[in-house]
């Protein structure tokens, strides 16, 4: 039987004005199962509100410490409470949930990870996993400007090649991460692209990779209630032979093959 786990907040790190990394001590079961691109469904305040759980990507895992980290932006009630939470507080977790990034067949081509802003969250765990599997990993991280840029060192530390892009050119490549991706795809031998970020960026990833004929998988953020496939709240429209059908972001996703996602709806 699957079950709910508890997470004990060990510490938090403030990375930007509105962005934190929360490190949770939790059950070894959960940590061992966690695949890249999967998420946990957090009950932030078991003694009070908000009512619904909140989905967060697994940002990194430290088996030795028995910890899981989340990278989150403060956007509403739940994340505001999280940001104010003190070490020692307990949350509850369902997870690991969903279908993450695929296990790719062996190849000499590199895997390019593209993260937009907070969309970087699941990519650190993903990069560690690729590196551990001996895969060449290149990471493109897009931010609006230098003062919003983060995490480059976390990726270099685990051996990935990192590019920062900023929209205003204040750091790294001047432009969107997808335009750098476009250049990388022309230049390098790339087996696949994994991306996470705003819908507009993902749509562009799909387009750029589609044109280059490279397989891409993208992680979709939809509002979720149950997080396990029962409520039908989180559907994503997926192309098929008959036209299209809905799949569940929480169960069939959040990672989908980019070429199959129909973006119009959100």
């Amino acid at each position, binding site marked *: *039987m*699957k*079950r*709910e786990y508890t997470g004990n907040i060990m510490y938090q790190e403030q990375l930007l004005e509105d962005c934190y990394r929360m490190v949770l001590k939790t059950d070894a079961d959960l940590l061992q199962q966690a695949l890249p691109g999967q998420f946990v469904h957090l*009950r932030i305040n078991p003694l009070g*509100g*908000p*009512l*619904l*759980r909140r989905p967060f990507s697994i940002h990194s895992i430290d088996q030795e410490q028995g910890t899981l980290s989340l990278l989150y932006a403060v956007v509403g009630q739940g994340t505001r409470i999280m940001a104010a939470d003190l070490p020692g507080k307990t949350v509850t977790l*369902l997870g690991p949930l969903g279908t993450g990034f695929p296990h790719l067949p062996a190849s000499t081509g590199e895997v390019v990870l593209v993260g937009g802003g907070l969309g970087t969250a699941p990519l650190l765990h993903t990069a560690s996993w690729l590196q551990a599997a001996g895969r060449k990993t290149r990471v493109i991280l897009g931010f609006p400007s230098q003062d919003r840029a983060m995490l480059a060192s976390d990726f270099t530390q685990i051996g990935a090649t990192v590019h920062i892009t900023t929209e205003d050119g204040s750091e790294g490549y001047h432009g969107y991460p997808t335009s750098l991706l476009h250049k990388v795809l022309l230049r390098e031998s790339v087996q696949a692209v994994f991306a996470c970020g705003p819908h507009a960026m993902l749509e562009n990833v799909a387009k750029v990779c589609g044109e280059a004929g490279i397989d891409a998988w993208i992680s979709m953020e*939809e*509002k*979720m*209630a*149950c*997080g*396990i*496939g*029962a*409520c*039908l*709240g*989180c*559907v994503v429209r997926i192309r098929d032979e008959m036209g299209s*059908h*809905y799949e569940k972001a929480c*169960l069939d996703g959040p990672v989908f093959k980019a070429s199959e996602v129909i973006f119009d*709806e*959100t």
Partner: protein
Amino acid sequence: MKHKGLQVVIPGRREGARSLTLDNPVIAASGTFGSGREYGEYLDLNQLGGIAVKGLTPEPREGNPLPRIVETPMGMLNSIGLQNPGLEGFIKEEMPFLRTYETAVIANISGNTVAEFTAMATRLESVPGIHGLEVNVSCPNIHRGGEVFATNPEMVQTITEEVVKVTTLPVIVKLSPNVTDIGLIAQSAEAGGADAVSLINTVLGMAIDIKTRQPVLKRVMGGLSGPAVKPIALRQVWQVYQAVKIPIIGMGGIMTAEDALEFLMAGAAAVSVGTGNFVNPTACIDVAEGINAYMEKHGLHRVSELTGAAHKQ
């Protein structure tokens, strides 16, 4: 949870009608539990009192565009739009799985005409493993300018009469809270021959996105559920208990055994947990165990000793 004291029986009222036996008074609410598959990974489905499967329509339905859910203070709005594989799809894809369990399966049916309701009831009559029908009358009647069946006593009575004619399954009419006098509507269901009523379905609500200055939900309004609506649901269960003699399945915001006990005391013979499952995947079983513990602590032998207790001074 199974033992005699927890069992709830909803007798069939008509000649030849079957009765519905629940192992315990906790049913997973329609639309919140899929067909049980997903929650079956977190709990033993055999420990439930019953499963009301997601709302079924004659044909497959895609459901509404996104977003489909909005959180509200201690509640949520949903606008799923009855996404379902259609009655035949359900029978083919889900019933083989559900038949492997002993738990009572209640088919929740939604139609836009009386004929759609009776067609589904007729078809389900012969499906092995179906233990009861829940008639969801909170749908617009396309023959009456979209008036919601549930708001009109005559329409509720008619649907009930027509459905009971074509089935020997116990018939539960699921009432909408969005009416002036829910007792009156319950009486119509009773007069139409319903074996039980269930309430409440979701409360009509909405939310606006102040950034876009548009309703959050594409279909503007959605159904409010969760703890926020509990006081309303309890009041309506109380009112219906005073209005009819048939058993009531109470729901609306139940998260804990304490919540469920309030519903039983207000007049419910059994309860359902909906939104609570999303927060706590073992909610149904936790509630059943809590009711059991309360009964043991207070020396109660049957759930029925609690039903309507708050009406007696």
